[in-house]
């Protein structure tokens, strides 16, 4: 028993408890992670910078000769005209005004047309000075930035054919690169901003919120509601909202309240979580445990449906446990704060399952030993079997019900739960939908410095520890779990239906800047096995205690952006001698990447063009990153709000559309 307890430590202390990893491998993994982090952030920025610089050289090389040529052409044009006029006057024997006028006006009209063509088609800026050029290095750099941020002022644009071709390819490569970089920066900024906000600005209220949370063991639902009512609004505004909403429309009880920070993910969680559970259980059951454990694994399927009906019982359990294991519990609860109710549900499931199970099984101590002995090989084996499972189910997309790995399992399910099969027929590719959920969880843990494989470990740990906890005194709890069975499967079913409707993959909605960032935000920054965790909205887990779920309020982000625009407006008004409205307009047009180009820096004050180009580039790069950050911070809550409105209006089916509204 004690041995098992040692193994069921909270997740972040598990490294020593996984000796099969090896210290060397762990070190390699750790350094790999660090390297990946450096690569993803620093190198990406460096890459973008060097891409811009390279583009600057390239465009300067391509466009500058043409520009000088156009300037020379204009001069020649004028000299020619002068010469013509001179000849006209000189040749004429009698200088008659009307004839002369007619001739010269024809020449002048021609001249005007040529100048206009030079401006329009050749991009002549009206300056004849050969020493000045638009395509200086700074100008070309600015141009490259303008292209890859898709602002596109158009004050300078390529005029040669090669310049155009180069621009096309430069944009094709550069725009995604820039998006990735910006989303990365926005991610980092969002994390740090959130950190700042919750650590520094709201230190007091978070602190007071946290202490009782730790003392009270697990019952988040009660806790969430209570704090929602009692705590100051900024810190728990969201949780209140969430709990209310989930209480309203999901019927899962308030324990869903904190589940995910992102509603989409939450629906995913509700839906896919079920399927994922199945798989996890399945692997475990077929992975290496004996019959008893399979029972345990299969039982929760049944129990889960009525878990939420028995809040009271759960509470008693948890309180009980909380008293007994409060010191360990505290640590674990910190971890759990960041984790989702999925896991909570796991735990409950396991509570229930092991509880009923144990009543006809051997004494817990013996079982503990056996479990522990099977543990370490079983990790690997369950993973391997899952691998096989995936490999099998992915290419052919066999319907789930046919997947043999669930043979024994499904025979168990069938009496108690029809849903897996109902789901299986319609949702025929579990692998396609489920992994993002899992991997996002994987990844979430991973960010806390654990290895990617530890998800199962974790579940198992909770399993073990919980079964351990309950195993000792399971007689205290009568098996109540039959009363709500009729109600819950329906919900489960609905959950799955909803999950089915979710897109099989995230989408990019437009080639434009902002909406994309949400989806591809994570892609570059993680190692190979996190790559498809684009669903993951779990960017906040920063260190151990940081409240990742809690968003920064919308008004703060809006305020930030507006003040950034206004501050930029003031600065540009000072630098460029524009009026305040003009510079605010300029900032807005720039940051939204519309980029009309009617106001462009470094046009009015020619002397300091390089300087103001530098200012403008910095301003817009940082500003776009800031916008990305605030989209990052705001979107979840905003989507939640919009969804709420849509739901209340009864246009639920438009949820997905509505929430993309403000992304």
């Amino acid at each position, binding site marked *: 028993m004690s041995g098992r307890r040692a193994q069921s430590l909270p997740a972040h202390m598990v490294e020593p408890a996984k000796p*099969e990893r090896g210290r060397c491998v762990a070190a390699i993994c750790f350094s790999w992670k660090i390297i990946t982090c450096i690569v993803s952030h620093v190198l990406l920025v460096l890459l973008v910078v060097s891409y811009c610089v390279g583009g600057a050289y390239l465009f300067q090389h391509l466009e500058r000769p043409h520009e000088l040529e156009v300037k020379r052409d204009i001069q020649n044009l*004028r000299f020619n005209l002068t010469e013509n*006029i001179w000849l006209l006057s000189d040749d004429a024997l009698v*200088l008659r005004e009307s004839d*002369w*006028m007619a001739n*010269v*006006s024809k020449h*002048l009209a021609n001249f005007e047309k040529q*100048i*206009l063509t030079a401006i329009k088609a050749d991009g002549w800026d*009206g300056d004849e000075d050969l020493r000045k050029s638009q395509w200086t290095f700074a100008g070309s750099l600015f141009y490259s930035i303008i292209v890859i941020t898709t602002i*596109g*002022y*158009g004050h300078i644009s390529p*005029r040669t054919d090669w310049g155009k071709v180069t621009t096309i390819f430069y*944009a094709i490569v550069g725009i995604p690169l820039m998006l990735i970089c910006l989303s990365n920066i926005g991610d980092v900024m969002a994390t740090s901003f959130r950190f700042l906000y919750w650590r520094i600005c709201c230190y007091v209220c978070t602190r007071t919120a946290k202490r009782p949370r730790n003392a009270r063991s697990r019952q988040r639902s009660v806790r969430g509601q209570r704090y929602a009512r009692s705590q100051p609004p900024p810190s728990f505004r969201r949780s209140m909202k969430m709990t209310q909403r989930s209480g309203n429309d999901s019927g899962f009880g308030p324990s869903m309240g904190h589940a995910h920070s992102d509603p989409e993910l939450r629906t995913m969680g509700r839906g896919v979580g079920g399927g994922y559970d199945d798989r996890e259980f399945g692997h475990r059951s*077929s992975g290496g445990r*004996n019959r008893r454990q399979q029972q345990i694994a299969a039982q929760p399927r049944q129990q889960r449906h009525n878990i939420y009906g028995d809040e009271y019982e759960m509470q008693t359990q948890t309180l009980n446990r909380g008293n007994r294991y409060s010191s360990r519990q505290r640590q674990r609860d910190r971890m759990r704060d960041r984790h989702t109710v999925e896991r909570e549900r796991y735990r409950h499931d396991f509570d229930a399952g092991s509880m009923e199970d144990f009543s006809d099984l051997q004494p817990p101590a013996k079982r503990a030993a056996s479990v522990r*002995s*099977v543990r*370490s*090989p079983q990790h690997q*084996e369950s993973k*391997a*079997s899952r691998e*096989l499972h995936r490999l099998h189910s992915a290419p052919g*997309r*066999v*319907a789930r019900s*046919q*997947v*043999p790995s669930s043979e024994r399992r499904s025979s168990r399910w069938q009496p108690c739960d029809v849903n897996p099969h109902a789901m299986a027929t319609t949702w025929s590719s579990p692998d396609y939908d489920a*992994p993002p959920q899992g991997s996002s969880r994987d990844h979430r843990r991973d960010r806390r410095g654990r290895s990617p494989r530890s998800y199962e470990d974790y579940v198992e740990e909770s399993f073990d520890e919980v079964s351990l906890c309950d195993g000792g005194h399971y007689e205290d709890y009568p098996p109540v779990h039959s009363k709500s069975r009729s109600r819950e499967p329906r919900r489960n079913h609905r959950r799955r239906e909803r999950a089915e409707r979710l897109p*099989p*993959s*995230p989408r990019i*909605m*437009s*080639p434009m800047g902002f909406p*994309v960032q949400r*989806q*591809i935000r994570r892609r570059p920054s993680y190692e190979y*096995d996190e*790559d498809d965790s*684009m669903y993951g909205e779990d960017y906040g887990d920063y260190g151990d205690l940081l409240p990742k779920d809690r968003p920064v309020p919308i008004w703060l982000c809006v305020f930030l952006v507006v003040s950034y625009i206004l501050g930029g407006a003031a600065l540009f008004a000072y630098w460029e001698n524009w009026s305040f*409205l003009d510079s*605010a*307009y300029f900032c*807005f*047009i720039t940051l939204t*990447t*519309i980029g009309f*180009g009617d106001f462009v820096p470094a046009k009015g004050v020619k002397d300091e063009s390089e300087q103001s180009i530098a200012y403008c580039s910095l301003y817009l790069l940082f500003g776009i990153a800031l916008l990305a950050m605030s989209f990052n911070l705001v979107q979840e809550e905003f989507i939640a709000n919009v969804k709420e409105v849509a739901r209340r*209006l009864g246009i639920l089916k*438009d949820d997905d*559309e*509505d929430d*993309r509204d403000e*992304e």
Partner: protein
Amino acid sequence: MSSRRSSFRRKEKPAFQRFKDHCRHFTAFMFSNVGIILLVTFYTIGGAFIFQAIEIFEYERLRSEKPHRFIERNVSGECLTRIWELTAENISFFDHKAYRKRVNDVLLEYQRAIVKKQLKGPDVEQWSFSGAFLYSLTVITTIGYGNITPHSEWGKLATILYAIIGMPLFLLYLSNIGDVLAKSFKWIYSKVCLCRICPGVAKRRIIRERRKMRHLARALQMHHMESGGGSSSYSSSSSTTNSNSSSSTDYTKSSYRSSSIVDVAYSGSDSDIEREIRGSTDEITVPLTVCIFVMVGYILWGALLFGRWEDWNYLDGSYFCLISLSSIGFGDLVPGDRVITADRDKVEVSFILCAVYLLLGMAVIAMCFNLMQEEVVHNIRAIKRGFKACFRCRSS
């Protein structure tokens, strides 16, 4: 947006139940696939009217307040008379150099006047309805050609507000239409390219895939036999007790599992295949090449179209299309440029043509990104799986 708000307000009065329902339906319709097109179109048209009105009104107001600014100087006439004066002055002593220098100065001044007038921006005449329509479209798509820009302060403010509301709306349009297009494209792709219309071909294809998969599964099974043994020995060294039983269970489970998978792979029955053939098209991923081909095709088609319409060459046309569809929008090439195409009707038509091309093209691009991302995610997942497997066998 406004309709939603209004229905929201009405919801507070339970007496208007039916009216509320109507509003709800209307809103739902407006945010559905057809409605969003209408919504965007009407929003753009409304924006066109608003901007046109604002700009023309402000122009008139400014003109009445400060008339001296708007007196059209006859620059060329002035220039002409000055040159004539010079010529008449110098007719007696023909100093070639001095004369030329003076004329050149006059011409330089003239040239600067032209440039200034040109760079000051287009005048109010550009705010025709179609011009304003294109303008509002470029605002909400964040293309921003800048060939027409607001000059009045109210126009700028209105642009900011218009963009704040319009851009999310357009994004909504994009995602919605892109979704619909992606679905239909997938459907078409699955029916035509994967030959799901013809069940025989599809069946054969699936059987072939099954066979491949079976080989894979068998290889994996062999692999797990080895790795299972390896891992169990490893674990026996790490865990102190009961290593024998654990390794044996491990081993058997592994073999059991793999063999069962192979079984199903063998027994891939007809009904199963039928179901897969008739199954939803959601799991089909369209290859990247097809998406890229569609995008390139659309751009080239646009190049052809605009090339014919605007007398651009092919490179210019594709450059314009790419710059527009990537929402960069330099505005160096804009359809209906007044300097090049003087015909007024043609200008109007080309604005509308450009707007339609953009509206459609953005949706197509969104669709392609949609599909491409799906495919990329799918691929990455597969790679990851392979990599993980490799890693595991190495570590174990």
